[in-house]
């Protein structure tokens, strides 16, 4: 077990290095320079490039990034907040915290809402409750998050004026409602569908027939024998779920004007602020990679069959 976890951590580390490398070369392929403005002269640009080491060959720059990252140094912003350390921008100004706060609430809501809804649908298969839930969840996965977000905005902020239009820094509980809801919509509906399917799948297994033959009550069969088995696919989804919440974060932060990591990432790309792009990508990617790691380990706890030595499909 420990060996497996160690192995997975090493693999995760290399994934991060790979992502950082891809990002590094991609962002250097973006045409233009962070110092290019209407007024800047070539000399000024060259001077600025020299100041931040951008005149050095790419492999040298890459190596510098990697070694600095290992020491926890993400460099300084070149443009958006010139001279400020990237770590300070991401973590010191509350951007990371804002994104995490919204993301975690959405994650929690998706799980707390999705799994019971899926169970209820499976338990009442074929009945009205099931049909209603199926319609709702199917809509939920078909509505793009920005559509849902703006719809919420339109109804609750513009027309009813119950909630603030701009969530800004999420000072009040009310400002959480719409971002979290729109972020959680897709994952909770997806989890509900997944739970329902895997629950029905589990119900058709031989061990459920055994449980029935033992004379267990339906409730016990569903919630003890079927649920735990049907949670396995749901846990697998938690990895992609983390990624989808990061993705959704871009949209939600744009729609509700939350100055979080996602919004900042997009402006950093548009501004070609290399260290900020790198920093944000690595931090977001790390979130996803860590989530995948957690999922792999959570697997072991739910499904004793998985030996965690050979991970193959």
């Amino acid at each position: 077990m420990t060996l497996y976890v160690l192995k997975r951590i090493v693999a995760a580390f290399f994934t991060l290095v790979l992502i950082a490398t891809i990002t590094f070369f991609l962002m250097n392929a973006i045409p233009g320079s962070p110092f290019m403005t209407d007024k800047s002269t070539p000399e000024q640009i060259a001077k600025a490039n020299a100041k931040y080491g951008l005149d050095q060959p790419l492999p040298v720059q890459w190596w510098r990034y990697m070694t600095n990252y290992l020491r926890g140094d993400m460099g300084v912003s070149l443009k958006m907040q010139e001279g400020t350390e990237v770590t300070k921008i991401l973590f010191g100004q509350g951007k990371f915290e804002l994104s995490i706060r919204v993301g975690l609430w959405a994650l929690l809501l998706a799980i707390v809402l999705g799994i019971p809804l899926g169970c209820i649908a499976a338990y009442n298969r074929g009945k009205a409750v099931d049909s209603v839930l199926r319609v709702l969840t199917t809509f939920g996965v078909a509505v793009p998050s920005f559509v849902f977000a703006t719809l919420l905005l339109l109804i609750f902020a513009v027309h009813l004026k119950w909630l603030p239009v701009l969530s800004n820094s999420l000072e009040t509980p009310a400002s959480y409602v719409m971002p979290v809801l729109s972020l959680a919509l897709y994952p909770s509906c997806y989890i509900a569908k997944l739970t329902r399917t895997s629950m029905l799948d589990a119900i058709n297994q031989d061990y459920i027939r055994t449980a029935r033959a033992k004379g267990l009550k339906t409730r016990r069969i569903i919630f003890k024998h079927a649920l735990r088995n049907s949670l396995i696919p749901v846990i697998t989804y938690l990895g992609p779920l983390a990624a989808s919440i990061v993705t959704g974060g871009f949209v939600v932060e744009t729609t509700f004007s939350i100055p979080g990591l996602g919004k900042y990432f997009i402006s950093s790309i548009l501004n070609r602020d290399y260290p900020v792009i790198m920093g944000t990508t690595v931090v977001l990617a790390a979130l996803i990679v860590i989530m995948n790691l957690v999922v792999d380990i959570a697997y072991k706890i739910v499904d004793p069959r998985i030996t965690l030595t050979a991970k193959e499909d």
Partner: protein
Amino acid sequence: MEKKTFQLFHSDVEPLTQWQNLGEADFAPATEQEKVSMVEEHKSVSYWKDAWRRFRANRVSMVSLFVFILLLLFAFVGPSFIAYSYEEQYREAAKLFPFEKTEAQEAAEALLAEGADGVLVTNLLPGSQTYLKKGNYYITARNGKTIAFNLPKSKEKIILVLESEKTPALWYVDQKAYLSGTYEKTEIETTDAPAENAAELKLTTSFFPHIFGTDSAGRDLLARCMYGTRVSLIIGIVAALIVLVIGSIYGAISGLAGGAVDFVMMRIVELIYSVPDVLIVLLLQVVLKEPLQKWFDASQGGIVKAMSDLGVGVVSIFITFALLYWVGMARIVRGQVLMLKKQEYVTAARALGVPGGRIVKRHLIPNCVGQLVITTCLQIPSAIFLESFLSFLGMGVSAPMASLGSLCSDALDVLQNYPYRMLCPAIILTILVLSLNLVGDGIRDALDPRLKK
């Protein structure tokens, strides 16, 4: 004779007497033919026919398919039924609500109602041009006669009116004056023969309503929604095909080759799988834009032309799909190939010395096809989803091109005052994705009844 219920043991065994009347003939052996005729031959239904029957029986899928076909018509046939194109700007008609008319249009309609053959409203000419330049013009009237005239001075904000039955036949009024009720007709002298350099003028006889209203640049929203749906659909279908081709070739090679090749290929897949796609996609969008634009500008031949028509944003979405999104498909195909490789009939074919290519063609492809169709179908809505997401963040399709996502994105800033501009494309997008998802689910259930619960 009546059918006897079958009872054993404790119930009395049936008395022998009731079969006294059975004769020797009854106990004669039956012929082979008679034996065969006892079992009615069932028509064996082909896989696809059977799948189609199952699909038809599924009401939800049928309705979704119908909705999807409506949307296809909306996107590809619809534009020929409306008078506006997605890119024409009518400056005067900007920011209209659905079915709202401009003042100029109301004035012109009033003139038409009074019996004019046709009118020309300078403010409602496409583009930023709100005046009629000086020069020679000719008009073909309703009765086929050519009416030519010379405009000695550029005229702004006028309504040119042709009343061929009356005199004067051609005149114009100042728009504002006409609306305030105190207008004077200014006659224009006409001749029958147009001057050599005369340009033809087309007069308006009726006004097509802006059903969804117009955007800030005065473009008809319905036309843009139709065009956007078309772009979104093309993106979805092409992206799914790209994924299908790359994914299945990669997966098939990996599965068929096996061994070290398979190992290396699958490690590559795993690596791509673990990369958070959206972060890379966003970077790619920015990276690809300029080189692509240069490439488009440099070469103007066949396929490149078609691609440059779609725009840089769309093509870079395709490239993104080609780079990152085929891994799921590759895994599925490889899984299928490995599973089928183990099947007896493939082993049998190999034992018989059937060459590899033939095995692939005769056995693997027909058996994979169901899975491929299902995965491809479900790929379409996810591609549309991704495109709309990118466009919404301002990184996908850009104006004057439209996709459903970019239309929503354009409307975000004016959401408070013009909510319908967001609602129209958003609702179409939702219905499109929903119907595609449901059709995909229906196809899956129809093709693979084992999966259906």
